[in-house]
C-alpha cells in the first residue's frame, strides 16, 4: 500500500474519531468536514474523479454547512449539560459498534484470497457518465430529482415556524 493511502486513511479516521468524541458541537461539525475532504481525496486516489468532486461539492459544500446551521439554530445554552455528552449507557453502544467492526473486518480478512490483485483502471469519462445518466439511468435520475424536491419542501415545512408557536 502506498504512503498516500495511509496518510489519507489516517486523516479520515482521525477526523471521524474527533467528530464523535469532541464535546463542542461546532468542533464536531468541522471535524466532519475534514472527514468529508479526506474521503474525497481517497476517491480521487481511486481514480473516481467525478465521485470525488461530487463529494466535495455536495458534502463539504452543502451538508457540512447544513450541519453547522442546525447546530447553531439548536443551541439552548453554552453550559455543558449535566451528566456529560455521552449517554448513560455508552458502554452498550460501544460494544455493539465494536461487534459490528469485528464482524465486518473478519469478513474482509477472510475473503482476501478470493479478491483479485490488480485490475486495469476502468476508463470512465464524464461524457460517459452523462450519457449513462441520461440514457440508462434516466429513471433513477428522475426519481432522485423528485426525492430532492420532496426533501426540500419537507425540510422547509418541518423546520419553519408554525402559527402561534412561541419561540
Amino acid at each position: 500500500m502506498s504512503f498516500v493511502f495511509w496518510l489519507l486513511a489516517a486523516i479520515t479516521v482521525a477526523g471521524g474519531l474527533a467528530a464523535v468524541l469532541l464535546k463542542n458541537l461546532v468542533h464536531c461539525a468541522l471535524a466532519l468536514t475534514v472527514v468529508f475532504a479526506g474521503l474525497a481525496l481517497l476517491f480521487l486516489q481511486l481514480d473516481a474523479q467525478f465521485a470525488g468532486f461530487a463529494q466535495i461539492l455536495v458534502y463539504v459544500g452543502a451538508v457540512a454547512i447544513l450541519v453547522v446551521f442546525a447546530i447553531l439554530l439548536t443551541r439552548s445554552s453554552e453550559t455543558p449539560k449535566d451528566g456529560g455528552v455521552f449517554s448513560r449507557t455508552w458502554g452498550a453502544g460501544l460494544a455493539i459498534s465494536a461487534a459490528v467492526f469485528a464482524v465486518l473486518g473478519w469478513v474482509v480478512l477472510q475473503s482476501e484470497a478470493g479478491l483479485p490483485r490488480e485490475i486495469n483502471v476502468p476508463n470512465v469519462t464524464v461524457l460517459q457518465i452523462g450519457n449513462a445518466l441520461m440514457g440508462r439511468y434516466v429513471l433513477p435520475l428522475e426519481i432522485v430529482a423528485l426525492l430532492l424536491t420532496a426533501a426540500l419542501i419537507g425540510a422547509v415545512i418541518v423546520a419553519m415556524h408554525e402559527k402561534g408557536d412561541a419561540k
Partner: protein
Amino acid sequence: MFTPQIAESAASGILWLIPALPIVASGIIALFKQPMRKLSATLAIGSLSCSLLLSLFAFGHVLVGWDRGSAVRETVNFTWIQVGTAHVDLGWILDPLAAVMLVMVTFVGLLIFIYSIGYMAHDENYTRFFCFLSLFAGAMLGVVIANSLLLLFMCWELVGLTSYLLIGFWYQKPSASAAAKKAFLTTRIGDVFFLLGMVWLFAQTGTLLFYNAGMGSMEALKLGGLLATPSGLGLTAAGAIGLLIFAGAAGKSGQIPLHVWLPDAMEGPTPVSALIHAATMVAAGVYLIARVYPLMQAGAQVGGTTVALTVVTWIGATTAVFAALIAVAQNDIKRILAYSTVSQLGYMMAGLGMGGVAVGMFHLITHAFFKALLFMGAGSVIHGCHEEQDIRHMGGLKVEMLGTFIPYAIGMLALCGFPLFFSGFWSKDGILEAAQHWSVAKTPLYMLVFGALLTAFYMTRQVSYVFFGNWRGHGEPHESPSVMLMPLAILAFFAIFLGAIGTPAWPWFRAFLEGHTARFDLAGFGEPGLPALMATSSVVVLLGLVVAWWIYGNKPTRVEDPDALERAFPTIFTLLEGKFYIDELYGVTVIAFYAWWARVADWLDRRVWGGIVAGIAWLFREGAQLSRLFDLNWVDGGFDKGCEELANSGGLMSRIESGRVQMYLRLLALAVVLLTAILIWSSRG
C-alpha cells in the same frame, strides 16, 4: 261308595260368587261415610243373604246328588301363574264337606250380622264395623271353597287380617290394639310353618290343587309319591307336610302352645267374638285339617293311624283339658267362653285325629251354633248390665233378662253335653267313641272325659254367678231389644235339633260326608262299648253340674266374697286364674329374646351399617376437600401465578420500549450483527 260325580254343574259354576259378594259389599262399604249406617248394614246383610241362598242352592245340589247315589266332588280349576312349564293353579271345589261348611258359615254369619245391628247401634264406627265384618265373611267363605292350598292360604291370611282389624276395632283402647297384635303375630308363627308345608308340597308334587281329576295333591297318585319320599325323623314327606300344615291350623285354632291370643281376643266387640272366635275363624283350622285329611291319613294301616294324626290327637286332648282347667277360675264372662272355645277346639282336633273327618266336623258344626249362641247371649248380658263384664258384678239376671236366660241355658247345656236332647251330647259322644276305639292309647279318652266334667263344672259356675243369686252390679239391668234376642232363639233351636243328624241310630252327617247311605236303625245304639260310654259321659256331665250347683248354686253372695273354690284350694285356684302363667313364660323367653334380638339388629344397623355409610360419606367429604385444595392451590393458584408471571414479564419486556431512539438503534445494530454472523456461519458450513 257312591259313583263319583266330578263334572261341573251350575252349582259349581256360581260357587265363586259366594265369597265374592260379601267382599264386593265390603269394598263398597269402605267408600261410605260413617253416617251412612242403614245403607252399609243393608249392603252387608244383603250380600251375605245372597251368599246364604247360593250356599243353600249348592248344598241342595250336593244333597240331590247324594240322594241319587253319586258322590259329588266338582272342581273348577284355572291356571293363575305360568312360568315355563311350571304353573300355579287356583280353583274351587264343591263337595259335601264344603257344602255343609258353607251353609253353616253363611247361616250363623247372617244371624250375627243381624244381631250386630242391635249390639253396635250406639257405636259411632258402625259403618266400619260392617265393612270389616263383610270382608271377613267373604274371606272365610273363600277358605271354605278353595280347591288350591295357595288360594286357601291367601284367604286364610285375609281372615287373619280381618280378625286383627276386628279385635282391635276399638283401637283407642291400648289393651285392644295389643290384643289384636298378639292375635296376628301368634297366628303368624303358625302360618310360617303352614307356608313351609305348602312350599314343600308344591316342590314334591308339583301342584297345590287338592283335586284335579286324579292329578291333585290329595289324590292317590301324588299321595303315593309323597309316601315314598322319606324326610328324616322317621316321617314320610306326607307326614312331615301334614305336621307343618297342622302347625298353621294350631295357630288359627288356638291349640297349645299357640292358644295365648284367643282369650285376649275378647277385647273385640261381642259379635266379633261370636263370629270369629266361636263359629268360624277358629274353626278354619279344623276345616283345614279336614281338607288335607287324605294327606294326614296317608300310609295308615287298616285300624291304625299315622304319626301326624297321633300328634294332632295328643295336642287336641291336651288343649281340651288345659283350657278347661283355666276356665274354672276365670271371672270375665267372655273369657270363660273363650277358654271354653279353646277346649272345644281341642276336642275337635282330637276327634279328627282319632275318628276321622265326620267326627271332628260334626262337633265343629254343633259347636258353631251353640257357641255363637252363648257369645251372643253373653253380649246381651253385657249390654243389659251396662257394659259390665265381670261375673262377680252380675247375678240374678234370670228374672230381668228371661229372654236371654232361656236360650243361654239351652246353649250351656248343649256345650256341657247334657244327655240326649242337646246336640253337644251327640257330637261330643262321637269323639269319645272314637277315642274309645283308638288303637294307640286310651289316655286321650280319660283326658276328654275329665274335660267334659270340667266343662260342666265351669259352665254351671258361670250360669250361677250370672243368672242366679242376687244382683251385685251397678244400676238396673235391662233386657236387650228383640233384634238381638231373635238370633238367640233361632240358634237355640238348632242347638237342640242339630244333634238329630249325628246320632248313632241315624248317622246321616257321617254318611253325607263320606258318600254312603244312612239308614235310621236303632241297632246303631247297640255297638259294643257305646251304651257304656253314653252312660259314662252322662254321669260325668251330671256330676259336674251337681257339684258346681252345690258349691255356687242359688246362694246370695257379695261382690267382695272370694270364690268358694278359691277359699278351698287357694294355690291351685291362683294358678288356674293366672292361666298357668303361660303368657308370662312367653314374655320372659320368646318375647325377651325377640326384644334382645331387635336391640342387636338396631345396634348393627346404627353402628355397623350406619357406620359404614357414615364412613363412606366422610371419605367422600375428605376427598372433596382434597379436591378443593388441589383445585385452589394447584389449578387456580397455578393459573394465577402464571398470569402474574406473564404480567411481570410484560412489565419487564416493556422496558425495551424506553422511548429512547438510541436504544432502538442499538437493537437494530445488534440484530444486524447477529444476522450477519448467522449468514456467514451458515454459508461457511
